[in-house]
């Protein structure tokens, strides 16, 4: 039969004995799991033994685009990376944009599953259908930009797309990420540490076969709708990317400030996306097939002459290159620019209004490959501990951990990536660090299930409460718990695109040719979330893990704290909605049957 949107080809790689094999799971498989979370959770249940060490050989690493990834329509450039998380000990998964996922699909692959551990550093080279594990000893220890240059030179093809870990992943920093094209990251849940534990430095891909689309004119019409309604639907993203609403958030008293204590800062306008555009941005970038172009690119030079030369030679006078007036930092545009989460986590929540230093720490997080949210929150936790005398200079080896210290943050970013001094403790993430430190330091945590919450205060935003309480990955703000976003993760469609649900359905139909109903879309999202829930339960999580940290029971100046009762009600309502036991959150036998997960559930015991 004709197949559209996917190839029915999943690549398995055993890094230990360097064997590879192709799985052809059949059409029903892709309709059932779609990709992303669904596919990842399926493989985690199947291959990872209960209680496995996330950084040991029994964990797997799954790269999972969705059935839409690589189709020529805005938003279809997403892929997910999954494994048992070294940060949460449960379901780990993170999404990225850019071009890499689409390139993998264009090379003829629907997903990759890495098994075991390589004895020496390697990288995987996928050239269409040809697959080769290559030595990466000479790349180990290098930052992402150097690795990108070396691999492109080695393979002799400038169009190769590379996903890779940085030094942080090699050093098993528990919130290390996987970067692709240097400026896109699968940031959350520590997937870079899992890749590092497998001694897999990079995955280089070149694909030349367009993804087959069932109804090309239908898909083109949707792409045209996005460009035609840009002003109405995507203007803020198109002009600024994320981070243009920070002043509103602060005015409403919901901005994370000084480790989520204040809710507002009068310096927000110095570091929001408007300030980025006006002061340091040179252009906007895009993901595969997307006309929204919401990715900031910033360029800062240490000296005026260098800035002038770059403006003239690189940008041909079309952009002004910023200069650090203190001559401290150069920020390389190869590494993109800070998203809202980074402006807040590396900036406002640490008491910083130094935009240049924030751009620098964001750049470093990209080339060392660490998640800016977990890193920023871990620093905020440590700074509050230091402020209260729980962490002292004796503990930190003489390194002060102070809010409002922009240059101090830059030093700490590097110390964490290389696990130097106090950086070794902080590289464990805030929850593990608090467990080791004790002394009541857990009172300042902002983690759920061990993962640091993103930069949206649930006391201010009710919509965030279920997301943080119930996302299978922990403190995740992407509202993966909802049918809309839950589905988009699996099919590989960006959350930022303002498609109505009927348009998402239309995209799914035009790409795959499936005669799919709205009800089936909801079922697919529930299936992915239920699979992830089964994995978390199997790994020992319970209802007690569906809870916000104590900090969020205390009020903000403008918003009440969240009571235990409020949280419990949200959790119970969600369990009921998903068809899970209202008391324990265990998916019922009926739900397992209805979602056709009987075979997966066998591995959930």
């Amino acid at each position, binding site marked *: 039969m004709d197949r559209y949107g996917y190839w029915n080809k999943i690549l398995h790689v055993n890094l230990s004995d360097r064997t590879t094999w192709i799985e052809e799971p059949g059409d029903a498989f892709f309709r059932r799991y779609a990709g992303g979370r669904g596919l990842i959770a399926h493989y985690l249940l199947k291959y990872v033994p209960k209680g496995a060490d996330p950084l040991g050989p029994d964990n797997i690493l799954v790269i999972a685009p969705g059935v839409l990834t690589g189709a020529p329509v805005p938003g279809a450039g997403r892929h997910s990376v999954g494994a048992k998380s070294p940060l949460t000990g449960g379901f780990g998964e993170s999404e990225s944009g850019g071009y890499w996922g689409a390139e993998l699909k264009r090379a003829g692959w629907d997903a990759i599953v890495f098994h075991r551990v390589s004895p020496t550093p390697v990288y995987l080279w996928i050239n269409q259908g040809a697959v080769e594990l290559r030595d990466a000893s000479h790349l180990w220890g290098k930052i992402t930009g150097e690795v990108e240059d070396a691999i492109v030179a080695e393979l002799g093809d400038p169009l190769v797309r590379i996903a890779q870990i940085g030094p942080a992943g090699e050093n098993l920093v528990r919130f290390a990420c996987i970067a692709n094209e240097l400026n896109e990251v699968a940031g959350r849940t520590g997937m870079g540490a899992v890749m590092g534990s497998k001694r897999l430095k990079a995955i280089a891909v070149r694909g030349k076969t367009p993804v087959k689309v069932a109804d090309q004119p239908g898909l083109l019409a949707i792409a045209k709708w996005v460009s035609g309604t840009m002003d109405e639907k995507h*203007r803020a993203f198109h002009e600024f990317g994320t981070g243009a*609403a920070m002043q509103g958030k602060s005015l409403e008293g919901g901005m994370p400030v000084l480790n989520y204590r204040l809710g507002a800062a009068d310096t927000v306008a110095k570091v929001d996306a408007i300030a980025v555009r006006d002061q340091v941005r040179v252009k906007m970038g895009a993901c595969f097939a997307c006309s929204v172009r919401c990715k900031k690119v910033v360029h800062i030079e240490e000296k005026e002459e260098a800035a002038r030369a770059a403006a003239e030679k690189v940008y041909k006078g079309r952009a002004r290159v910023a200069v650090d007036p203190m001559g401290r930092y150069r920020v390389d545009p190869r590494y993109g620019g800070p998203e809202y989460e980074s402006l807040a986590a590396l900036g406002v929540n640490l008491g910083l209004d130094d935009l240049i230093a924030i751009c620098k720490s964001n750049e470093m997080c990209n080339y060392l490959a660490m998640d800016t949210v977990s890193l920023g929150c871990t620093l905020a936790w440590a700074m509050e501990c230091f402020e209260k005398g729980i962490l002292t200079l004796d503990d930190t080896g003489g390194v002060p951990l102070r809010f409002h210290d922009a240059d101090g943050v830059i030093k700490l970013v590097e110390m964490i990536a290389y696990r130097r001094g106090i950086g070794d403790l902080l590289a464990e993430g805030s929850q593990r660090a608090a467990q080791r430190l004790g002394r009541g330091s857990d009172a300042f945590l902002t983690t759920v299930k061990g993962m640091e919450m993103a930069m949206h205060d649930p*006391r201010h935003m009710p919509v965030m409460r279920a997301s943080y309480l119930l996302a299978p990955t922990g403190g995740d703000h992407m509202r993966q718990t909802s049918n809309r976003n839950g589905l988009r993760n699996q099919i590989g469609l960006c959350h930022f695109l303002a498609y109505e649900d009927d348009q998402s359905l239309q995209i799914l139909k035009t790409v795959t040719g499936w005669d799919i109903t709205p009800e089936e879309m909801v079922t697919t999202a529930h299936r992915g979330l239920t699979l992830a829930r089964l994995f978390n339960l199997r790994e020992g999580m319970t209802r007690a893990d569906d809870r916000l940290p104590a900090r969020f029971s205390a009020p903000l100046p403008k918003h009440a704290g969240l009571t235990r009762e409020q949280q419990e009600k949200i959790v119970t309502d969600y369990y009921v909605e998903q068809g899970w036991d209202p008391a324990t959150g265990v998916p019922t036998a009926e739900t397992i049957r209805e979602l056709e997960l009987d075979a997966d559930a066998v591995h959930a015991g």
Partner: protein
Amino acid sequence: MTVTVTFFADLRRFLPRGVDGPQRYTLREQATVDDLLTVIGVAQDADVTIAVNGEQAARETSLHDGADVMLLSPMEGGAAAEGEATTSIKGGA
């Protein structure tokens, strides 16, 4: 009277195409924020955060000549889906 309005984030969709920066609006005397929003074309039920001269304001807030009005959306990034409302300032602690 004349007021100056700055649009942030998603609300920039109310700016004319190609236009940037603050816009000036002329209103009747004793006009409120609500009157201003009607002139601009912001729906009655839209989730908008309003500031007048840097202080958070309500739709009923009276305007005065020369006021600086900011219209903001507090939604961001992954939160900016489906236009769901944030809590109202009035419900705060």
